[in-house]
């Protein structure tokens, strides 16, 4: 059974769930009555009446209090899954127990007194000067009530936590697969794919070796895209591999755009083995192509580079396209790409990494510059390898 069906069929605050608690409680109380009857050589019927009265009164007060506290909490903080799962929080639960158990104990005892005609030891009935038997019996039964109620509460707590954890894990997993799917959709953009295939179809007849080279780039691009959409071992993807994948993508686009696209990739030797999240730069390069260079009548340049500056790895994607201001509206696509890069950086490096997107002045060629800064990993020296 999946976690989803558990959480959806499980309604801990429903009347049915509360009654189920009551029934379990009644069974536990009956067991205690039997145990007490054996222990005190008393009358089982009388023990049962007392045990059930006290137990059910405690249960009614505790579950009632819990129900009210959870309702209130759900209203105040609807995002907290644990309140909806029936756990009002430790402080509230302790308070409910401290009030509910003595009240339930006294109320239940008085009810049982009325039913059986006995007089149970109550504080106002026992004089201070009385011998210890009255107080001992009172304390024993009160502590017993606390113990039973406390254990039930602990059980509730553990179960609530378990269910909440499972629901949270499921939510995170669902979010991750949604993001993965969206990422995949944005990277395998049908327009790019079918245009590439159309070019490939033409090249096969015109220039078979070039068609083969293009196909190799396409295969590498598809493989990288599919791999990146799955969870990879962190740190296993190097900057050199990342730039090779970008080169695959740009080679494909270059065949399509012909002389309208000029591109260059500059990777210093020392930075080749720097780890980066797979296809981190891909959305930036895609934005440059789709929103910067493809709409430009004369096309332009795209330059991808990496430098190390004061402990930071700085990756840049710069295009001489039509720029941020005049780019035709397709904010959905480009925003998803940028947002996705930002989220990945934040989840890996927190505030230590950032992405900036800025227009380039016309004097410097115009277009757009995207810069990513992330912490530089110390180079793996030979002493570390040993």
């Amino acid at each position, binding site marked *: 059974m999946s976690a989803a069906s558990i959480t959806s069929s499980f309604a801990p605050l429903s009347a049915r769930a509360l009654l189920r608690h009551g029934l379990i409680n009644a069974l536990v109380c009956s067991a205690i009555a039997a145990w007490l009857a054996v222990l005190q050589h008393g009358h089982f019927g009388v023990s049962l009446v007392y045990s059930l009265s006290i137990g059910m009164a405690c249960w009614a007060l505790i579950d009632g209090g819990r129900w009210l506290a959870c309702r209130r909490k759900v209203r105040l903080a609807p995002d907290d899954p644990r309140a909806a799962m029936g756990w009002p929080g430790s402080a509230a639960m302790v308070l409910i127990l401290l009030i509910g158990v003595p009240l339930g104990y006294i109320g239940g005892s008085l009810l049982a007194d009325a039913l059986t005609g006995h007089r149970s030891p109550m504080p106002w009935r026992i004089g201070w000067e009385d011998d210890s038997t009255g107080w001992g019996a009172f304390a024993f039964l009160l502590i017993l009530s606390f113990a039973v109620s406390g254990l039930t509460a602990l059980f509730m707590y553990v179960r609530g936590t378990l269910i909440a954890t499972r629901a949270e894990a499921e939510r995170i997993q669902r979010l991750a697969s949604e993001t993965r799917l969206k990422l995949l959709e944005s990277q395998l953009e*049908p*327009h790019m*794919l*079918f*245009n590439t*295939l*159309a*070019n490939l*179809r*033409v*090249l096969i007849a*015109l220039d078979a070796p070039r068609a083969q080279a293009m196909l190799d780039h396409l295969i590498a691009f598809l493989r990288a895209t599919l791999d990146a959409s799955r969870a990879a071992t962190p740190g296993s993807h190097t900057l050199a591999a990342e730039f090779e994948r970008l080169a695959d993508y740009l080679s494909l686009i270059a*065949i*399509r*755009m*012909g*002389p*309208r696209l000029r591109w260059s990739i500059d990777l210093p030797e020392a930075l080749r083995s720097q780890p980066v999240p797979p296809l981190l730069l891909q959305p930036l390069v895609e934005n440059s192509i789709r929103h910067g260079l*493809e*709409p*430009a*009548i004369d*096309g332009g340049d795209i330059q991808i580079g990496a430098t190390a500056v004061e402990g930071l790895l700085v990756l840049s994607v710069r295009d001489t396209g039509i720029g941020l*201001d*005049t780019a*035709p*509206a397709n904010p959905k696509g480009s925003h998803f790409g940028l947002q996705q890069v930002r989220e990945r950086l934040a989840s890996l490096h927190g505030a230590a990494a950032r992405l900036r997107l800025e227009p380039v002045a016309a004097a410097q060629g115009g277009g757009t510059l995207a810069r990513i800064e992330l912490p530089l990993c110390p180079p793996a020296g030979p002493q570390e390898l040993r």
Partner: protein
Amino acid sequence: MTAPITALIAEDEPLLAAALAAELRRLWPQLQLLPIAANGPQALERALAEQPDLCFLDIRMPGLDGLEVAQALVEDWPESGPALPLMVFVTAYDRYALQAFEAQAVDYLLKPVEPARLDACLTRLRQRLAEREPPRSGSAPDAAALAPLLQLLQQHAAAPRLEVIQAQIGSTLHLVPVDEVLYFEAADKYVRAVTAQRELLLRSALRELLPQLDPQRFWPVHRSTVVQARAIATAGRDEAGRLWLTLHGRPERLAVSRLHAGRFKGM
């Protein structure tokens, strides 16, 4: 038929353009191909200058996209010239375009273009050319045939309504209620918003602005003009048959393109 049939290919990807040209030559050797147009503005200019019988327009092109080229062609086509070219749209993947054209007279091709599909398209075009009245058929049937195009161009998802427009002048941001704007006019990369008292330049394209305007109040009358309906005083034709609007509170006249002339039929 004496004059050869001419065709224009507009496609920004050189390999695809060359391949389509080669395929057309193979399937229709008598067809005379004009030099390939590599972007939207070039396609518009070449089509207006050479007046081909057929246009193969890529939908995604720099400058103007294929649909915009088609719209501009309809609006700027000389009244006294030959009939409008028959247009075929070529696209890699535009679901909305496919839906709109599925049932319409204008054809479309999907990339990669399959020879059999292209052949069927050419058969259709030959048929349409033969059915065509001897040249000079007038604009009415063409405008009717392009009704789906108009629909397609206005098929933008409704964006949130714009109530106030903002324009930067120097270091000051000026805010103008959209209701005060008498008309918007596309000007290069900007849009001029004209009120009774002044003009503001907005850094935006008209086609991005259009979905944010209330279509009941703001009417597109030309590919570069959107008029607020209550600002229109009169609509009348000049001696050349062109439709013009005069406005309340502004001296200038605004041209109505034939694509939008239908709106003023009853007036």
